[in-house]
C-alpha cells in the first residue's frame, strides 16, 4: 500500500509538471498585457513595463525562470494588487473557500445519504417520490438561484440569518446550504439507485434468511456496499463545488479564492493563472488519490494489487 501511494505521489508531480507546462504556453498565447490600464499605455510605456517584469524575454526563457521559482515554492507576484504574492493570495483565500466547500460536502453527503436510503427503503411511497422531487430540483436548479432566494427570503424578509459577509458561524449557514443542494441531490439519487439494486440481490435475501435482523442487514451490507459509487462521485463532486463556490462567494461576499480562478484569466494576470491552476490541479489529483485509497477501505475486493497491508 505504501509503495502504491509513493508511486501515485510521484506520478502526481509529473502530472502537475505537465499541467504547468501546458498552461504556461497556452497562457502566453493570450493576447494583451497584464497591466490594469492597458488601454491608456503607449507602445513605449508598454515596452518599458514589459522590460521591468521580464515579459520581453522569449517565452521559453520565461518558462524556465518560472519553473526555477516554482521549484522553490515561489509562485510570484500578482499584477492585480501591489506587492502581494500569489502564495499569500492562495493561503488567504483558500480558508473561507475550503470551509464552505467542506461544510457543503459534509452536510450534503449526510442529508443525501439519508434521503437516498429512505427513498430506497420506502420504494414507490410518498417518501420516495418526495425525496426524488427534491433531488430533481436540486440538480436542475443551480446553486446560485438557491443562494439568491435564500438570501432574499431568509436574510432580507425574515431577517433570520445574515444577508452576506464572513464574520462568524451564522454567516456560514446560507452559503454552505446553497452549495450543498446539488450535493444532496446527486448523492440521494445515486444512493437510492444503488440501494435498490443491492436490496434485490441474492446475498441480501440470504442474509435475511439466515435470521440477521433487517436493520443489521441494511446497515452492514446494503449501505456499505452502496457507498462505493458514492465515494467515486465525491471526487468530481468536490471539484464541481470549486466552480460553485466561485458564484456563491460572490453572492455572499465571502473573501474566498474562487473568483480569482476566472478573473485572473480575463486580466492576463499570469502568475495568478498559473498559481490557481496548479493549486486546483493539485487539489483534484489529491482528491482522486484519496478516493482510490478509500475504495480499499470500503471494499477489500478493490484493494490494489501489490498492496499487502
Amino acid at each position, binding site marked *: 500500500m505504501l509503495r502504491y501511494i509513493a508511486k501515485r505521489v510521484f506520478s502526481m508531480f509529473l502530472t502537475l509538471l505537465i499541467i504547468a507546462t501546458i498552461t504556461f504556453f497556452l497562457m502566453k498565447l493570450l*493576447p494583451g498585457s497584464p497591466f490594469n490600464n492597458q488601454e491608456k499605455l*503607449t507602445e*513605449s510605456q508598454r515596452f518599458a513595463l514589459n522590460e521591468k517584469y521580464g515579459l520581453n524575454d522569449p517565452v521559453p526563457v520565461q518558462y524556465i525562470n518560472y519553473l526555477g521559482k516554482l521549484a522553490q515554492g515561489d509562485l510570484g507576484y500578482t499584477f492585480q494588487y501591489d506587492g502581494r504574492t500569489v502564495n499569500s493570495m492562495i493561503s488567504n483565500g483558500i480558508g473561507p473557500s475550503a470551509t464552505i466547500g467542506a461544510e457543503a460536502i459534509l452536510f450534503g453527503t449526510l442529508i443525501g445519504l*439519508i*434521503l437516498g436510503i429512505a427513498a430506497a427503503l420506502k420504494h414507490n411511497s410518498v417518501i420516495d417520490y418526495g425525496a426524488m422531487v*427534491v433531488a430533481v430540483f436540486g440538480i436542475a436548479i443551480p446553486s446560485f438561484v438557491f443562494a439568491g432566494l435564500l438570501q432574499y427570503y431568509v436574510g432580507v424578509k425574515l431577517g433570520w440569518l445574515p*444577508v452576506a459577509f464572513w464574520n462568524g458561524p451564522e454567516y456560514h449557514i446560507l452559503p454552505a446550504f446553497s452549495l450543498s443542494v446539488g450535493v444532496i441531490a446527486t448523492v440521494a439519487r445515486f444512493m437510492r439507485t444503488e440501494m435498490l439494486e443491492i436490496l434485490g440481490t441474492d446475498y441480501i435475501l440470504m442474509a435475511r434468511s439466515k435470521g440477521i435482523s433487517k436493520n443489521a442487514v441494511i446497515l452492514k451490507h446494503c449501505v456499505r456496499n452502496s457507498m462505493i459509487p458514492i465515494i467515486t462521485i465525491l471526487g468530481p463532486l468536490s471539484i464541481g463545488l470549486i466552480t460553485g463556490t466561485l458564484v456563491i462567494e460572490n*453572492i455572499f461576499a465571502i473573501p474566498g479564492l474562487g473568483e480569482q480562478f476566472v478573473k485572473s484569466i480575463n*486580466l492576463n494576470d499570469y502568475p495568478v493563472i498559473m498559481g490557481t491552476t496548479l493549486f486546483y490541479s493539485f487539489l483534484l489529483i489529491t482528491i482522486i488519490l484519496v478516493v482510490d485509497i478509500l475504495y480499499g477501505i470500503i471494499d477489500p475486493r478493490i484493494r490494489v494489487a501489490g498492496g499487502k497491508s
Partner: protein
Amino acid sequence: MKKSKWSLLLTLVLVLSMFLAACSGGGDKETGKDTKGGDDGKAAEKPAEPQVLNLLDSEEIPSMDSSLATDSVSFEVLNNVMEGLYRLDKDNKPTPGVAEKHDLSEDGTVYTFHLNPNAKWSDGSKVTANDFVYSWRKALHPDTLSEYAYIMGPVKNANAIQTEGDPLQGKVEELGVKAVDESTLEVTLEAPAPYFLGLTGFATFYPQKEEYVKSKADQYALEANTLLYNGPFVLNEWKHNEGWQYKKNDNYWDKDNVKLDEINVKIVKDVATGVNLYETGQTDITGLSMEYVDQYKGHEDLYTRGEAAVFFLRLNQKSEALKNPNIRKAIDMAYDKKSMVDVLLNNGSTPAYYLVPGDFTPGPDGDDFRKTNGNFGKYDLEKAKELWTTGLKELGKDSVELELLNYDSDGAKKMGEFFKNQLEKNLPGIKVSIKAQPFKQKLELESKGDYDFSYAGWGPDYQDPMTFLDMFITDGGHNQMGYSNPKYDQLISDAKKETDQKKRWEMMLEAEKVLFEDQAISPLYQRGVTGLQKPYVKGLAHHLFGADTSYKWAYIEGKQ
C-alpha cells in the same frame, strides 16, 4: 421499524426545510423598508448623531502606493486618506490641499507652490516640498515605473524620462520639480496647462515621505499600518478581500471641516447582494444595474448621475468601406442612439453626439465646452440612406460586410445586437457581423486595427477637453483607427503650445468640429451611474476624473 420512522421524520424535515425558505417570506412584502428617515430639515439643531457612513465597494484595493495606483478603487481610497497640492471640491474646482497658495509665471509654465505649515503626516511630522519631489520622481523611476506615469506628461521632461532610447531616459533628477525650501515647491511644465492645478489632486501627484517609505521597504503601503497618511481620513483597518475602515485623521490640517468619524466599506461584487444589504440597512449607498432601475423607478432614494466617460464606435479608416466619409456619416445617422440608451442602458446615461462630454469643462468664458460646440449629427434615416447610396456608388459596390469588435459583457452584447439590427434594417446592402471578445483581447485586436467598428470608451485623465481630443492625432498611441487629418493635428499641437486661454479654447472647439466633419467616430453615449442612497447621507462630492467620491465634506443628518 424504529429506524425507518427516523428516516421518515428526517426526510420530512428536510423536504420541508428546502421549501420553507422559498415559500414563507411571500406574505410580508414591506418588512425591508424600516430605515426611512422621516425627519428632515430641522434635524440640524439636534444633538450630534453618530457620524458613521456604511458603504460597499466592488473590489479589493489594488494599490495604496499613490505613485503606483492605476484603478478607480485605489484612486478613491487614496483621495480620502491622502492629499496632493490641491484637491477637487464639490464643484470639481481645485481647492487648497497641502499647498496654501501658488504663484504662476507669466508664460504659464512655472508654478511655485507655498505649502501649508499645518499640513502634517499622520505621525505628526510636516509634509515638506521634498516629499513631493521624492514621490514624483519615484513614479517615473525605471525601478518603480508606474503604469500611470504618463499622467505626469505635462511636467517638464516627464515624457523623455520614460521614453526608451531618449538621452534623458530614467534620469528622474531632470524632472521639472524642485524643492526651493522646506515649504516651497517649484514645478516647471513643458507647456502651459490650465488644468494642471486640478491634476495635482490626482493620486500620482501625492507626496510620500522618503524616510518612511524607505524604512518600510517592500512592505510600504501593503497594510493599513505600513503607510503614512496626510488626508482627511486614515485607514484604520484593512482586511484584504473583505473591506476596510476609515477613521477621521486627527493630524489633518483642516480636520474642523471633516464631519464623519468613521466610514466602513465592505467588498460586495454582486449587485443583488448590494440591494439586499441596502434594504436591511447595512449599507447607506449601493449601485444599481439596469434590471433594478425599473424596480426602483420613482423611489425617493434612487439617484442618477452623469459621468465624464464617453463611449463611441471607432470607425476604422483603414477599412475599405469606412475609408469613405459618406459611408461613415450614413452609419452614424442610421441608428437611434436615444432608444439605445433609454432601453438598453436605462441608467442615467445620455446619448452622445460628440466626443468631449457635457458638464465636464467650462471654458475661459465660463460656458461648458459642450454648450458652445453643440451636437454633431442626429438620427436621420432619409439623409442616412441618401449618403449611403452615394457612398456605395463611390465605392462601386452594392453591398458591404463589416465587423463590429465588441466587449463580451452582457450589456455590450445587447448594444452590439441593437446596432447590427438597426443598420441592417436601415441601410440596404450592409451586413454586420459581431465579434465579442474578452476585454484584454478586444484591446489587442483594436490596437492591431483588426476590425471595422469597435465599441470603445474613454474616461478623462484630467479636466480638460484635451484629454479626449489628443487621442485622435495622426499615429497617436490611442488613435488606433488610422484617422488622420493634418488640419486636426495642427490644431491640437497649436493648442498645446498656446498661452492665451481663449485662443486655446477656440482651437479645441475647432478641432472637435473637424473631427465630426470627417465623422471620424460615431459617438454612442455619455455614461451615467445609478443607485440608491439613503436620504440622511449628505455632502458627498463626486468627481469626473481620478477618484469618484470625496468624503471630506460628507455628514449624516436625520438618520435618527
